[in-house]
């Protein structure tokens, strides 16, 4: 086991997920756990979750990764994006459990999108570009992107709290997203 962990940094996450899907590879799962569980926990803590809740949801996320590994499509999403959406959906499910909706509405799921054939670059490259673009955003734009992820208050409330004019968060987000799109859609 310790050997698999030592090897973790050299094996990329997509290959680990594939090994889980194809061979139910426990060493690959352990390596993926070592790589992602502490980051997933950090993400949950940033959202305000207590230690126990964070641990619990990370465990569920990694268990779901194990069970759904065969559904992972590296052409459609990078490993980090896929794992991120599993965490997010589990969080949303937890919130819904506390506030039930009429079942007919709750059932309206997300449509699944096939990978975009016209895209010039693959998912892993896209993610590398997104990461670079995120790092290069002006601080005030990066801040509002982070707020969208880590602050659950409506935007107008955030603006009041930050003392910035109404509509500023929205216009900064528009600029940030436009920049990200430019970075992703340029062919180099």
């Amino acid at each position, binding site marked *: 086991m310790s050997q698999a962990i030592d090897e973790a940094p050299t094996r990329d996450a997509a290959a680990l997920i594939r090994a889980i899907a194809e061979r139910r590879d*426990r060493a690959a*799962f*352990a390596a993926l756990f070592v790589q992602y*569980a*502490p*980051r*997933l*926990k*950090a*993400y949950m803590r*940033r959202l305000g979750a207590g230690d126990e809740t964070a*641990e619990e949801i*990370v*465990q569920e996320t*990694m*268990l779901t990764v*194990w069970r759904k590994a065969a559904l992972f499509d590296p052409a459609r*999403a*990078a490993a*980090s*994006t896929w*794992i*991120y*959406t599993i*965490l*997010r*959906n589990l*969080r*949303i499910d937890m*919130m819904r459990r506390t*506030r039930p*909706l*009429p079942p*007919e*509405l709750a*059932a*309206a799921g*997300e*449509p699944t*999108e096939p990978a975009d054939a016209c895209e010039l670059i693959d998912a892993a490259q*896209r*993610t590398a570009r*997104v*990461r670079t673009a*995120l790092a290069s955003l002006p601080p005030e734009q990066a801040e509002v*992107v*982070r707020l*969208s*992820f*880590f*602050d659950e208050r*409506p*935007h*107008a409330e955030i603006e009041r709290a930050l003392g910035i004019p*109404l*509509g500023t968060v929205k216009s900064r*987000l*528009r600029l940030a*997203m436009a920049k*990200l799109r430019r970075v992703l859609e340029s062919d180099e």
Partner: protein
Amino acid sequence: MIRHHPSEATLLSHAAGTLLPLHAQVLALHVAQCPACRHAIRLGEELGGALLDAELPVAMAGDALARVTARLDAPAPEPPPVAAQAAPHAIDAVMRGRRWRPVGLGIRLLPLVPRDATGTRLDLIRVAPGVALPQHDHTGPEIACVLTGAFADATGEYHAGDIAEGDVGLDHQPRALAGEDCVCLIATTGFLRARSLLVRLLQPVFGV
């Protein structure tokens, strides 16, 4: 043809999972029929992946891996039954067995979810052709998706599939266009503040 899309802020919050759940229900109706917005949400999910990668690891409990490994062979729980229907049809199902409540001349309301812990409620609103809602302001965010018919206010014309968002500071008087009844699914956080004192006095009676 869809002309009005949700704001980038709303799409990003949706990708982040931080959009209020009832607002997300309204957004889902639009997203189901809008490839451009699905694309934007995917970009938001990629941002989420990048933020996850950028996190500084926080140590898990010492036995965390052992505990989850012990559960790997347990059978997966049955997923909740998912109706294989598109969201707009879900609305028909929701309406079955419920009754429209008149809340004014030519305006009817069908409450779906009462105000929740976030102060958000979900309703269907049905406005007869040519009828206007009282001029009003908002104390919180609101998101509506047009199901049938169309309405217009100072910000434009909204037809089936279009999203209209309101927030603190939007003071408007939506009016249903001629033709058929305009039906919208609407999530409202906070309260609408009518300009007219009479309407304000009547508000507690209608509960909007």
